[in-house]
């Protein structure tokens, strides 16, 4: 018998706290059915850079809400967390994937994460960045297990890593 959908942030955190990350988090997130109203209290917007807001953090995982204005992007980065699940909850973001080669970063292609998409983007330790090409705002719910303690930004000052051209603003 399938497990019931998870309809609130509080229930999601409760479920995550009950289980071991590697085995259960994908299954838990597949039951995601949280209305956007329940997440809105974590939305923060900044016209200079995307924002990160912590929903919950303990020794095993951290749950963040990431808000992108049109045109905003993360750096090209990786981190130390073994498991990371990125779930789009509003708008859409492009995930650009990279690998470090002999001559520097090499693009591995890109994927789109769209609201309502059944698939979560699972990053692990891959080099990547998220871009909101606009025209609308975008929000993702990011789950890291364990919580991040290292963050490496590649080619911070190169054109590749600069913020994407701004799209139409609200």
């Amino acid at each position: 018998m399938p497990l019931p959908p998870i309809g609130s942030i509080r229930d999601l955190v409760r479920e995550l706290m009950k289980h071991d990350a590697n085995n259960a988090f994908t299954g838990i997130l597949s039951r995601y059915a949280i209305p956007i109203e329940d997440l809105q209290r974590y939305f923060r917007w900044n016209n200079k850079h995307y924002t990160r807001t912590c929903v919950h953090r303990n020794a095993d995982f951290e749950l963040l809400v990431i808000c992108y204005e049109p045109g905003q992007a993360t750096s090209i980065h990786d981190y130390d967390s073994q498991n990371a699940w990125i779930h789009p909850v509003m708008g859409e973001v492009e995930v650009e994937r990279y690998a470090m080669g002999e001559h520097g970063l090499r693009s591995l292609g890109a994927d789109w994460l769209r609201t309502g998409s059944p698939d979560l983007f699972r990053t692990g330790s891959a080099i990547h960045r998220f871009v909101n090409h606009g025209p609308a705002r975008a929000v993702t719910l990011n789950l890291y297990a364990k919580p991040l303690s290292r963050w490496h930004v590649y080619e911070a000052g190169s054109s590749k890593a600069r913020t994407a051209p701004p799209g139409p603003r609200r």
Partner: protein
Amino acid sequence: MEGSTSSEAGKLDLGRIGLLLFRNAAEGLVVVDERGTIRLHNPRLHSMFGYEEGELDERPIEVLIPDALRAKHVAHRTAYHKHPAPRMMGIGMDLRGKRKDGSVFPVEISLNHFTVEDRMFVMGLVTDITLRYDAEEALHRTNQELEERVEQRTAELRNAEQSVREALEKERELHALKGRFVSMASHEFRTPLSTIMSSVDLIGRYTGNEAEGKVGKHVARIRTKVREMTAMLNEFLSLERIEQGQVECNPTPLDIVDLCIGLIEELRQLARPGQSLDYDHTADERSVTLDHQMLNNVITNLVTNAIKYSHDKDRIMLRTVIADGRLSISVMDRGMGIPLEDQQHLFERFFRGSNATTIQGTGLGLNLVKRYLETMNGTIEFTSIPGNTVFTVRLPQHLGK
């Protein structure tokens, strides 16, 4: 008391006069023998000590002495009998008499001696100086109060003078600071302003389809330059606020990893081509209680400096460690380094390294960092050689309000 003589002129009875003088004297008169027994006294003496007439006859003189001084008085009296001489008694001391009711009052006593039929007697002239003593006490108290008031007023004046001096000094420093700022701004703003001007000129000339990309490039350049100028102004305003005591430390609970990742993501936009930024936190503990804005400014300043003074493609590392109730933040770069002769001046206001004069900066950043850290009970130190500079900040993990 016996004694009489006569003069040829008046046939005065001096014995009688002497007796009258003795009886009516305004001061107390007492005569004691060699054993200290009162042999004779006048009415003023017994009234002064609160006795009835005749009550003091044949009593030891020590009944008129306060209890605590009696034993000493016997010794003084014996010594006086051995070497009698007219003198004041108890010079340099506050003499006290004891009344019949036990109360004590200040007296002044003059001593003299005489011999009658080979027996020596000592006569004392006793003056009740209560009124004078009280007046002196009152005067002393008044003097003391006056002295205290003068001292207090002097201290107030001294404090006021010190405050005025400090205010003047601060005013002078602020004036100098503003002077330095005008000089710095007129020099440092010139380059970004001319860049902005030339970009604006070029944007005005572009036409057609190919213009879009070029316009975007110049808009980005203008943005960067405006950001640099804003940062310079912000540094100066921050310093002015600190100088004027307008900066308060408000510690709040923070997640240091969140803060640092957020800052790295913001500051990457300032990075030079190919530079990478690496952040690493050591310890399970991530929570600190510090002033958010000050901590932000400290890390931003150190990472921005590392970016500015490093080369293209260099790696800049930010590390945080929490251990034993202390937060340690270090920023490492592989840039040009700080010349040895400049290192002792690095935290002085407006100081620019001799190898950094061509790089945009106000010379205020590290001074501000130091001031913020002092406010949060923190310290900063650094080591630097060309190709390896490390700034290390140490702070209490949890700062009380």
